[in-house]
């Protein structure tokens, strides 16, 4: 199911009335069956966003849509979602099996003739709403008529007093009321026709229900087993056991079904939480930093597992994380947030290659992107006074800018490269070499360059090196990208 976030805002009022806007006018859409990674530093409002989608927090403003349904005011128990909490929140007094089955215990079916019953209820509701609308329209007609009569009297009064403005105002009111009356009068026959229809439908629904009741009685006699199956309102113990076992198997905890949560390691608890969230086949799965408490190996493994389960089940998923690598590897789309404001929404590769601003550029990639000071003068981009970019003409306004180059985007040149570097240290890290230093004349802007280890001989022992960028980004001082 598609999930649409529209203008979503959450402001907490803390003690002493201090306001914190945790989420600020957020907009994004998760296409059906996709996995969106919500990425941002700690405290930027990721969990708050998730809790609003879950219904645990009420938005201050904005809407949440599940498909065509506006669920903004729907309580969480009616949203059909699965949520894995940051610290699992497994029920400590229930076994793993009971934990996974808990959502299933709450499933209620409408029973033997549920469909027919629902149809009757729907028809009754329709009639009630239509009747209400008819009353409202009649009231509107009366109100409009009263308003017209009153305005007419007033108009005469004004005409006598030769008050042109007053007359005009009255005419305006009359015109408006006339149009209101007209639309209400036009609405009425339609509504009445609809009421007749609805009443017919109700009659039919009631008849169908009676038929279904009779049929069910017959079925009871003919085939008691089938009748029992048809009439059940809850999942049977066997059904629940089957699902619990299957879910436990998917997340590889089936051997611990009878343990209590506190008898499991952090990673195992996390997987139980995932199994519990999946058990009722949620329409939307929400994961709040689900891998944060796992060790490195298990994190990789579980990350792939989540991706696999998500692909297999096709459940629309929101995955919250502060780990850019995790977000990059698992998401179909990444939403980067900072202080409650969305910075960029794109595919992982695009976020990495085309960062919308300096914050995104710095937040993604490890080691982090290198940033140094440049300047635009006469439409030219300069670094340390020399022309940095010969290809492009920048805007007319002369100003200071930031130039950013990813560590792996440097090419070593013998001489005259556009980035002169003062080397502090050369680190050998196996396949690659890290050159650590700074751009000449900018000692405060640290620099880390990754080059292949074949170039070892050429950099060792040198104090100065010269590089050309394969690719670079230019940002305004305040962070926006210069296009």
């Amino acid at each position, binding site marked *: 199911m598609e999930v649409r976030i529209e203008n979503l805002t959450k402001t907490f009022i803390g003690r002493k009335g201090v306001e914190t806007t945790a989420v600020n006018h957020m907009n994004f859409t998760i296409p059906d069956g996709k996995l969106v990674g919500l990425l941002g530093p700690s405290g930027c409002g990721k969990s708050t966003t998730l809790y609003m989608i879950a219904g645990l927090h009420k938005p201050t403003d904005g809407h949440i849509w599940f498909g065509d349904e506006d669920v903004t005011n729907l309580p969480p*128990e*009616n949203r059909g979602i699965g949520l894995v*909490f940051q*610290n699992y929140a497994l029920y400590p007094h229930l076994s793993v099996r009971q934990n996974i089955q808990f959502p299933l215990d*709450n499933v209620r079916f409408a029973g033997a003739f549920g469909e027919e019953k629902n149809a009757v209820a729907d028809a009754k509701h329709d009639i009630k709403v239509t009747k209400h609308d008819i009353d409202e329209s009649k009231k509107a007609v009366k109100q409009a008529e009263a308003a017209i009569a009153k305005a007419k009297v007033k108009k005469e009064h004004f005409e006598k007093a030769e008050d042109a403005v007053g007359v005009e105002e009255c005419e305006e009111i009359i015109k408006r009321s006339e149009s209101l009356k007209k639309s209400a009068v036009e609405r009425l026959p339609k509504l009445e026709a609809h009421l007749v229809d609805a009443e017919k439908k109700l009659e039919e629904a009631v008849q169908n229900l009676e038929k279904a009741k009779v049929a069910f009685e017959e079925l009871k006699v003919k085939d008691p087993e089938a009748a029992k199956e048809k009439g059940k309102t809850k999942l049977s113990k066997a059904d629940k056991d089957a699902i619990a076992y299957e879910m436990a198997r998917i997340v590889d905890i089936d051997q611990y079904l009878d343990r209590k949560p506190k008898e499991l390691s952090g990673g195992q608890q996390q997987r139980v939480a995932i199994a519990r969230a999946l058990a009722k086949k949620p329409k939307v799965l929400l994961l709040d930093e689900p891998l944060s408490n796992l060790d490195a190996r298990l994190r990789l493994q579980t990350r792939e597992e989540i991706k696999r389960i998500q692909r297999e089940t096709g459940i629309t998923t929101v995955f919250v994380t502060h780990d850019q690598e995790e977000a990059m590897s698992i998401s179909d789309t990444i939403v980067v947030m900072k202080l409650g404001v969305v910075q960029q929404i794109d595919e992982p590769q695009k976020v990495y290659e085309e960062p919308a601003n300096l914050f995104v550029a710095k937040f993604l990639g490890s080691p982090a992107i290198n940033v140094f000071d440049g300047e635009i003068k006469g439409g030219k981009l300069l670094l340390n006074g020399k022309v940095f970019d010969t290809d492009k003409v920048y805007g007319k306004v002369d100003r200071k800018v930031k130039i950013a180059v990813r560590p792996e985007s440097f090419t070593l040149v013998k001489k005259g490269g556009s980035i002169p570097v003062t080397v502090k240290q050369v680190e050998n890290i196996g396949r690659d070499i890290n050159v650590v230093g700074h751009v000449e004349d900018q000692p405060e802007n640290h620099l880390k360059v990754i080059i292949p280890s074949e170039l070892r001989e050429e950099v060792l022992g040198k104090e100065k090196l010269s590089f050309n960028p394969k690719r670079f980004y230019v940002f305004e001082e305040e962070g926006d990208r210069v296009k």
Partner: protein
Amino acid sequence: MAEKTLKLPSEVYAEIKDKPLIGKRRRVQLPQWAVAWLVLLPALVFLALFMFYPIINCFFMAFIRDFQYVDSGGTFALSNFFRAFSDPCLQPFEGAIHCTKRLGKYFMAFGFNNFQTVLSNGLFLQSILNTAILVIVEVPLTIIISLLIATFLNNIKALKGLYQTIFFLPYVTNSIALGLVFSILFSNTSGGIMNYIITRLGGQPVNFLGDIAGLPYKMADGTIVELPAASKFNQGIVIVVNSVWNGLAFKILVFMAGLATIDKQYTDAARIDGAKSFTIWRRITLPLLSPQILYITITSFIGAFKMYTGVISVYGQGAYYFGGINKTDWMPVVGWIYLQMSNESQYKGINLGVPAAGSLVLLAIIMLITAVQFGVSKKRVHY
């Protein structure tokens, strides 16, 4: 205003670098257990004086005939015990073994006869039954009500403090005073709101407080009717209402404290899992509150078995009035014990062995029930 400037850490370190540190103190260090005993000592002294000594005394009294403080025994029960061997005037218990052979001319003045007396006393057995009925009705009622109130108090936001204060008031009110309030509420004279409501709704006045039948009752319209005879049931209602109300505050407090420790994430998770409020309460909140429920259940049972003020305060007619013409309608076990120690008893407060034996019987019952509760709770309490 002068701005406060922070020192640099290096400055702080430089300042304190050459200051001498305090030398190792070569004081005699008491071992931990000794310190513990020392701290406990005052409490232990008082406990010994006012708890252990009376309990031990009680044990001796229960097994001896004609225990007397003033007599040759002094105040230490054990000396009374020795007297049993050495006092030729002391009569032996009926049927006690005649020990002349082994002890020369002395008799055995100790045995189980006090218990025999107690257990064959009709009033004692009735008081056990009375207490049992009150316990069985009151304890579950008070626990359920306090649980519900605590849950609601925990859920409401507006005026929470006010409600908490209201429900806490009984805790800081004297229980005799509280009982008197109830005795007025249920009385058949002015101020008897309950009877006023009942008669106003078209009913006949009810003799809630065990008064004699035929007393005049003035209806709201001025007519006088006769008060019907007191029934045990009606009096029981007042006693139960009084003791439930009396014990509510503390239980609510304990449950609220317990509820506050339950992480909101569990109820959030349960809502996500599709559970309705009542399901969450039954399947998540209650089990997580089970340690507090166990604590309250056990202390309530013990407290209810020791019920006394809760009964007399309702009647308000003295320490030995428990309702009815015989004054014994709702006599609790503790009431019976007090009565035996008083001058109103057949023993005129002289034979303390009988009430002592009664207390031991009560003690045995309470211990047994507590043990059973602990046994049952093993499976159902989640720590």
